[in-house]
């Protein structure tokens, strides 16, 4: 007897609906599987057979043929276990075929029949809804992420037995079925909340970071060891605007594909903060593997990518950032196809001014002029070009550290950021832009017009400071954000003036 069960699969970050066909016929007993299958999928045969046996179902000695379509897409992962098992059961006549109509089934089987979590449930369920399916059966551990998608019936199952029970019920009983999910425990005791209130002094850095957050500008902090660069960076997500639902889904999808969505209660509500160690490889940064997993830059999508000690990163790894910084996505080509992962992150980089860290304090710094230059040059020009704001983090005075001062909290800073964000939303309502930092070429002139006096002022500054043409656009974008924070419609000299102070040191000095 022949039967067909729907399932879903992911290809990069895209998902598609696949189907599992099973035919049971007389002949030499056997279990054949076809359909361009990867190793894990082939091994499903053993898992399904044993899991069925341990659930108390005997497979008769017949010839079973399993075909997973579309046949030209390579199948990876263990999420086909459950649909294969269900399809076999239907083909053997244990479950009526109409019970699985318009139902997408995914899940990995344990030998004892339990169902384990799989990757990419969120995008698959979303795809199922788009394809007009009515129901999704997913591992109970993935229920939270699957349940984010509304207008589709999501059922979480813990074991093969439970799946069979569910499928063999009447339609009425099914409507009443409720997935029993344990509520995430960690809601009560959240991890220590970071707050800018913990940060004493550092007014200049605070301000720079606020501007960066308001316009989603990439920022570089330069300072001696112990100047609190890391401390500042870790607090940046606390002043970024909240994720919108759409953004949240994007981020959750990436985490779902990476299999990192457990324990977050389904949806990613916080902006991600990623701080990879400087020994990170190119593959880990951009996404790697035969079928690439999302890399760190994709996991930082819509959030903060913090590169501490930036010059210590492998040059080849840093160069990878070029395309994502420009296109907001990363394109990875492999034998099995090319994959595009979103990578729209805010780059926060920190570095020492020289190898010993104390330049330009010549009493402490022992580096030669060349060493200082070489250190700066470890970061290539194209990368520095894409960073809008540079700020010096000074060494912190011990008195400042111990002082009991009232510092501005993240909430206060965020309020201002949100106001600036709102102004940007109004400005860009007819375009695809979201933040000032994204503006390109001619659009800069359109959205950030300068009046005659300001134009002249800019010319003066340029001649005086010997700035490059590239810095010009960066400067105007930053000035636009400063004006937004200021609640001003026009960019004034004051805004431009402040933006000039956040320029990159030209020529590495």
């Amino acid at each position, binding site marked *: 007897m022949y039967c067909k069960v729907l399932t879903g699969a992911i290809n990069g970050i895209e998902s598609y609906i696949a189907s599992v066909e099973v035919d049971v016929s007389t002949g030499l007993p056997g279990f054949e599987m076809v359909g361009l299958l990867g190793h894990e999928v082939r091994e499903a045969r053993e898992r399904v057979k044993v899991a069925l046996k341990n659930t108390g179902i005997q497979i008769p000695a017949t010839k079973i043929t399993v075909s997973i379509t579309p046949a030209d897409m390579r199948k990876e992962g263990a999420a086909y276990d459950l649909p294969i098992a269900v399809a076999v059961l239907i083909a053997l006549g244990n479950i009526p075929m109409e019970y699985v109509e318009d139902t997408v089934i995914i899940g990995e089987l344990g030998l004892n029949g339990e169902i384990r979590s799989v990757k990419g449930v969120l995008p698959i369920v979303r795809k199922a809804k788009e394809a007009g399916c009515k129901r999704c059966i997913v591992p109970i551990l993935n229920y939270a992420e699957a349940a984010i998608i509304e207008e589709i019936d999501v059922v979480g199952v813990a074991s093969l037995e439970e799946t069979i029970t569910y499928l063999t019920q009447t339609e009425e009983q099914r409507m009443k079925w409720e997935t029993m999910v344990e509520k995430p425990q960690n809601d009560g005791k959240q991890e220590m909340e970071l707050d800018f209130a913990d940060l004493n002094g550092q*007014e200049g850095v605070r301000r720079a970071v606020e501007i960066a957050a308001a316009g989603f500008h990439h920022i570089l902090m330069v300072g001696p060891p112990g100047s609190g660069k890391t401390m500042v960076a870790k607090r940046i997500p606390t002043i970024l605007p909240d994720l919108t639902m759409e953004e949240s889904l994007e981020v959750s999808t990436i985490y779902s594909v990476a299999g990192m969505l457990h324990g977050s209660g389904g949806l990613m509500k916080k902006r991600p903060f990623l701080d990879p160690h400087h020994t990170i490889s190119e593959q880990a940064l951009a996404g790697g593997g035969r079928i690439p997993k999302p890399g760190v830059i994709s996991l930082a999508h819509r959030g903060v990518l913090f590169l501490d000690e930036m010059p210590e990163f492998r040059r080849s790894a840093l160069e990878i950032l070029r395309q994502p910084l420009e296109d907001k996505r990363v394109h990875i080509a492999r034998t099995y196809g090319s994959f595009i992962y979103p990578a729209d992150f805010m780059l926060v980089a920190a570095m020492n001014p020289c190898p010993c860290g104390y*330049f330009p304090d*010549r009493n402490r710094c022992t580096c030669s002029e060349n060493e200082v230059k070489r250190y700066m040059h470890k970061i290539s020009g194209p990368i520095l070009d894409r960073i809008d704001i540079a700020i010096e983090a*000074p060494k912190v005075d011990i008195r*400042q550290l111990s002082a009991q001062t009232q510092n501005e909290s993240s909430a206060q800073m965020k309020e201002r950021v949100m106001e600036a964000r709102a102004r940007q939303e109004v400005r860009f309502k007819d375009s695809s832009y979201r933040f000032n930092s994204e503006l390109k070429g001619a659009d800069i002139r359109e959205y950030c017009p300068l009046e005659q006096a300001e134009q002249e002022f800019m010319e003066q500054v340029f001649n005086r400071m010997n700035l490059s043409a590239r810095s010009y656009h960066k400067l105007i974008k930053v000035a636009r954000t400063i004006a937004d924070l200021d609640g001003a419609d026009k960019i004034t000299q004051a805004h431009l*003036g*402040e933006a000039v102070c956040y320029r990159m040191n030209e020529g590495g000095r």
Partner: protein
Amino acid sequence: MQNVEEKMYACWLDHVPGLWRTQKNALLKMLGTPSEMYKLSENEIKHLLGRDKAEIWMNFKKENSPQKVYEVLKREGLSYTYYGENEFPKKLMEIPDAPFSIYYKGSLPEENAPMVAMIGARRYSEYGRCMAEYFADRLSGNGIGIISGMAMGIDGISQRAALRAGGRSYGVLGSGADVIYPNSNKDLYDALCLQGGVISESVPGTQPIAALFPQRNRIISALADVVLVVEAREKSGTSITVDMALEQGREVYVIPGRCTDALSYGCNKLLRQGANAAVTPEDILEDMGWQNSGGVKRQKKIKLTEVAESICKILEVTPKTQDEILIELRKRKYTYLVSEVCQGLLELEMKGIAERIGGQYHLLYVV
């Protein structure tokens, strides 16, 4: 024509391996002209310099003719002069260990032109850089030539500033005059050839080795009337140059620094030992009796905004980064916003009062 031939012989002699400078000088003194030295027979050389050197000498004579050696020199664009010749700088003849030959590109310093040698560390502070540029600029603006070693750091900075001011500058190299070291000073080398000269005592092609540098320093100080120490650590090559300058009877001037700055320690120590203090370039001009064409330019009082004024007061003490300035302002109970301080800093920069280097703001002069 006689002159050129003598040059050829001297140059040839200088290329003979294994001869000491003192030997060459003594031979020249004894025989009068380089051609006489070339004509020495093997026995005479054996008698004068010993058997080994005679053998090297004769071998060299067999393989290299004076014309050939001199051709190579010309091909490299180098000029040559030897001790006692007309072109040979008189200042160099005065010193006890005068060089036998001088190779140069560009020109040699004019006989009576006033010269200041500016020396200092390869590693320098921003203060040192500012001072080197300031002094070099003002001195060359007054027609004083700047001599230095074309090295990294203070040397290069001073010479570049001198050339920018349109003055003449001469680089004395430890390597051959055709060997550019450090490579990053290629531009300076080329500029010096046009607007001054590059001078070396070593045979062309000589690679820069550490041992050659102290010797080159004696030429720097000898060619100058005044040796100006810009910045020096407690122990540095600068002190060797200063010692030589004193032996040669040159005036030593020192730019004073703060007591706590490691890079000014050597300078202040020299001052303590009785060196002249050069607080302004005009000090040197006046003391040496060189006319001062520019006169002491007092900066006109520039009108500043309130913020800029208070920032100036803070920067007077030491250069600071933006955040450090903020901290200082808070200590003094100012409540300017960050954006206002940025304005003030930009104003100072635009008016040429302050400069940002490596994230720090430096006051270029006291307002």
